[in-house]
């Protein structure tokens, strides 16, 4: 009957994989915010952290590929699930009131996710691709003080800053449902913990995007 492949093949396995990739991204985002935030406090601290992240072999060889895989896995799996779920109901309702029983964000994870994905494309083009070119194509000598100036340059452009802020609004929406959803998927729900998890999710989904937006606006206003 049920095969031993349950942890790989079943619908619950897909949920679990989705949730674990999301939890990983939640953790990544938090550390990203902490490092970015140092740019508000001190140019030197930001440069030294960025230098560490950009040159440390463990970060570069081990963590960076894991992150890349995590992001790819998350949205490809998101697409697959969405496709399968759509296919499970061929004839749609003539009248359906989703708003009566579930939140808009929970029903539109794909759309908030797609916006984040589009933003990540821009984000990679701004920071990551130049970083790779700088390091591996042009093979420049490492300058541990360059990071802060690169950041200032990007956040000087009002269109970029606007897009950046908008993307984080979508991230907030994505996480408003995503945070507690990922914990529900790994089985963390009971009367004792759930109210706390929901509160923590609300705090995370608002504070983390607000933090990123604050940093962007801070550098933009300073550049005027």
């Amino acid at each position, binding site marked *: *009957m*049920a*095969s*031993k492949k*349950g*942890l790989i093949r*079943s*619908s*619950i*396995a*897909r*949920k*679990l994989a989705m949730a674990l990739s999301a939890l990983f991204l939640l953790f990544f985002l938090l550390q990203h915010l902490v490092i970015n935030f140092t740019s508000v406090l001190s140019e030197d601290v930001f440069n030294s952290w960025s230098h560490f992240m950009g040159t440390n072999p463990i970060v570069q060889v081990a963590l960076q590929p894991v992150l890349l895989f995590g992001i790819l896995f998350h949205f490809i799996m998101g697409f697959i*699930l969405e496709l*399968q*779920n*759509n*296919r*499970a*109901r*061929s*004839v*749609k*309702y*003539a*009248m*359906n*009131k*989703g708003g*009566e*029983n*579930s*939140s808009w964000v*929970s*029903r539109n*994870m794909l759309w908030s996710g797609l916006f984040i994905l589009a933003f990540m494309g821009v984000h990679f083009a701004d920071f990551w691709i130049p970083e790779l070119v700088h390091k591996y194509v042009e093979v420049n000598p490492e300058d541990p003080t360059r990071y802060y100036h690169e950041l200032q340059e990007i956040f000087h452009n009002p269109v970029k800053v606007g897009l950046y802020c908008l993307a984080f609004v979508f991230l907030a929406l994505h996480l408003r*449902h995503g945070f*507690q*959803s990922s914990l*529900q*998927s*790994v*089985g*963390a*729900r*009971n*009367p004792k913990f*759930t109210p706390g998890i929901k509160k923590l999710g609300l705090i995370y989904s608002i504070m983390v995007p607000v933090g990123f937006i604050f940093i962007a606006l801070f550098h933009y206003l300073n550049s005027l």
Partner: protein
Amino acid sequence: MNLTLKIWRQKNAKDKGKMVEYPISGIDGDMSFLEMLDVLNEELIEKGDEPVAFDHDCREGICGMCSLYINGEAHGPDRLVTTCQLHMRKFKDGETIYIEPFRANAFPVVKDLVVDRSSFDRIQHAGGYISVNTSGNTQDANSIPIEKEKADAAFNAAACIGCGACVATCKNSSAMLFVSAKVSQYALLPQGEVEAKDRVLNMVHQMDLEGFGNCTNTGACEVECPKGISLENIARMNREYIKASMSK
């Protein structure tokens, strides 16, 4: 009151089907929704038209036979009631009411508003039971002490009547609430613990074979479920499943 009904009509499983409009008048607020449909069907029969086929049995909210997607919600706008216990006073005079079958590919339409929910039966057959020797020396269930909290949670899960509103309402047509209620009902009790691992693996396996979608935790099922089955059951099933698939 006078109402306009927009009802899904479909001759048989192969027919394409369409929404058909029926005006109806003289409906009393104290009538149940199904009694209102009975009135419509009497009129249709008198006119020599085919009556609207819909599922029902007990008409007191316990059998799980009635279904219907009413004005965009499974079992209609009221909470914690089945369609048979929904009253017409929940609607306004002059209102247009959409009446559709529960939709999911795993619940194919048989005729009009009647859908085939035997996919649920096959999931039950895959493990929704305990094996007990009934040859005369069966132990009295009450002789095994059970924590009150657990007994209550098992009882609440056992309240599921297998109506399928959770599937009908879910944007992913996921059957997780139903299956998790059946899994929890047994997993919480010592009598069910013995076969708990096989049960959850087999029932989830069957659920996947039937073509239900993947749960994304929107929580719509819990809101529309006439028996108030909680999402906690889904979290419990996920835990049970992870545990079982690591050790089986």
